[in-house]
C-alpha cells in the first residue's frame, strides 16, 4: 500500500520543474520532503494530488493511476498552501463539506482541535489570517483519516506556540490513527525529530531518499584549529567549511575514524546542518 511516483516530469515552457522523479511513499511512515524554494516540492505534491497534470510519467496510489481516479484521490488528502474553499463559506460549513466528502472525517476531533487553536468556526474562511487559514487546513488534514495525508508548508504564518501544538497533535494522531504522512517544509530543524524518512529534492531531481537516521549518520562535523582541520580534510569528501578566526568547522561525508587526531572535535550533524552542507556541495558541483 503506497504512493508510487514513476519517472515524473513536469515542464513549463523552458523550465524543467521535475526531471524524471521516482520515489515511493508508504508503510504508514512520516516522510519529510525537503528542498529549497523552487526545487519542485509543491509541483511534485500537486501532481500527486492531481491538481496538476504531469508532462511525463505517472503517479500510482495503491496500484491505481491517480489521474481522474476518484477512489485513488479519495485516499489522499492534501493540505496545500492555498485556500480552495468558496469565498463565502464559513469554517463550520467547511467541516460539513469535509464530512460529506470523507466518511472517515472525525468531526469531534476537528471541533476540539479548532478550540485548542482558538479558531473561530463561525468565521468566513476567506477572512481568516494567513496563520488561521493554515490552521483550518491542517485541522482538516489531521481529522480526515485518509491513508495518505500530505502537508505542504502546513505551518505558514503560525506562531511558535501553534507550531508546537501542531507537531504534538500530529504525533498523537499518528499514534492513534497510523497513516502515511508527507511533510514538506522549510523548517527542517523543527521537524527533524518527527520524520522517519527524508526525501531531498533539488532542481527538480531527488538527490537523497533515505531513512532520516542514515542520512545524518552518513556525515559528521569536525572542528578545531584551522591548520589541523585542513590536514585532516585531505582526501576526504568535504561538504562544507566554516572558518571563524583560527577555528575551522567542516562537514564531511562518510564515517569518522574511531580515533581522531589530537585537538579535533567530532560531532554529529543535525538534519538541518546536513541539508545546508549538502546544498552547498551541490551548488559547487553545478
Amino acid at each position, binding site marked *: 500500500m503506497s504512493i508510487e511516483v514513476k519517472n515524473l516530469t513536469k515542464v513549463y515552457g523552458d523550465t524543467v520543474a521535475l526531471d524524471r522523479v521516482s520515489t515511493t511513499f508508504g508503510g504508514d511512515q512520516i516522510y519529510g520532503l525537503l528542498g529549497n524554494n523552487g526545487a519542485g516540492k509543491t509541483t511534485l505534491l500537486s501532481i500527486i494530488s492531481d*491538481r496538476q497534470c504531469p508532462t511525463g510519467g505517472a503517479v500510482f496510489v495503491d496500484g491505481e493511476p491517480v489521474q481522474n481516479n*476518484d477512489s485513488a484521490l479519495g*485516499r489522499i488528502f492534501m493540505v496545500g498552501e492555498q485556500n480552495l474553499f468558496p469565498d463565502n463559506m464559513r469554517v463550520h460549513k467547511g467541516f460539513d463539506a469535509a464530512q460529506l466528502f470523507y466518511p472517515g472525517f472525525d468531526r469531534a476531533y476537528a471541533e476540539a482541535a479548532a478550540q485548542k487553536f482558538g479558531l473561530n468556526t463561525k468565521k468566513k474562511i476567506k477572512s481568516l489570517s494567513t496563520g488561521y487559514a493554515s490552521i483550518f487546513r491542517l485541522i482538516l488534514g489531521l481529522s480526515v483519516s485518509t491513508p495518505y495525508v500530505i502537508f505542504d508548508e502546513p505551518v505558514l504564518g503560525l506562531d511558535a506556540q501553534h507550531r508546537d501544538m501542531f507537531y504534538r497533535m500530529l504525533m498523537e494522531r499518528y499514534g492513534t490513527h497510523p497513516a502515511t504522512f508527507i511533510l514538506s517544509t522549510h523548517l527542517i530543524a523543527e521537524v527533524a525529530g518527527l520524520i522517519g524518512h527524508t526525501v531531498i529534492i533539488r532542481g527538480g531531481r531527488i538527490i537523497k531518499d533515505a531513512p532520516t537516521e542514515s542520512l545524518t549518520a552518513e556525515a559528521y562535523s569536525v572542528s578545531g584549529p584551522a591548520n589541523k582541520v585542513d590536514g585532516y580534510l585531505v582526501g576526504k569528501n568535504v561538504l562544507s567549511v566554516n572558518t571563524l578566526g583560527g577555528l575551522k568547522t567542516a562537514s564531511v561525508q562518510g564515517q569518522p575514524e574511531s580515533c581522531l587526531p589530537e585537538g579535533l572535535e567530532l560531532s554529529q550533524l543535525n538534519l538541518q546542518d546536513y541539508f545546508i552542507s549538502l546544498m552547498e556541495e551541490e551548488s559547487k558541483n553545478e
Partner: protein
Amino acid sequence: MNRSFKSAFRYQVTDLLKSTAIFFVVMLALCAAVIIDAFSVSTSDSGFKIIGSSSFTGMGTASAICLFIFGITAPRSNLRLCTQLGVSRRSAFLSLLLSALAVSAALASAGEVLMGSLQHISIIHVRINFADLYQMIYVGSTSVTLRFAQHLNSALLVTCLLLCCFTCGVFLTLLFWRLNKGWRIVAAISIPFLINGVPALLYRFGVDMKPLFVWLGSRVYHLDLFLLLLTLALAAIEWLLLRHAYIRSPSSI
C-alpha cells in the same frame, strides 16, 4: 456513480437550489406586482369601473439569464472545492453538469406550475395573461390556457434552455480561465463581433438561415434537440479546456 461523485452532486445541487430558491421568490414577488399593476380605475359619466390588463411572459427568459449567471459563477468555485475534497476533475465536471440539469428541471417545473396556475386568473373584468416561451412560439396565443400535455412540452423546453444557458456560462468562464492574457483580450473583443457579425456575414454570402428557423419553429422538439446538441458540443469543449488545468486558488489566475 461512486461515493465522491455522489457527494459532489449532493453538494452542488444543494448549493444551486439555494440560489435558485431565492430567484424563484423574487419571481413570485414580480408576479404579484404584475397582478397588482393590472388594476386601474377609470372614471366616466356612468361612474367608475375597474379595468385593466396585463401580461407577463418573462419567466422562462428570466430563468435562462439566472442559470447563465450560475454557469459563470459556479464552475471554478465548485471545481476547487471538489479538488480539495478528493474528487477527480472528471467527476467534478460531470456532477456540475448533472446538478445543473437537476436544477434546470426543478426550476422549469416550478415555473410551469406557477404560470399554469396563474393562467386561470380572471378577476372581475381584469384580464391578466401569464404565458411563457413555448406558448408564445408554438401555440401562438398568450390568452389561451394550456392543456396538460402542452404544459409538459413547455417545461421540457425551458429545461433544455436553462441547461444550455448554464453551459454557455460555464463555457465563457472556462474560456477566460484557460486563455492567457493576450488571448483573453482577443476573446473579449471577438465575442460581440461574432454574435453580431456572423449573422450579417451569412446574409452577405447568401447563406439562408431561414430554413433552420422554420425547422426550429415547426415543432418544439426540434428546438429541444438543437439546445441539447449545443449543450453537448459546449460541454465537450469545456472538458478539453479543463482536462489539463492547474486547479488552484483565485488569487493565482
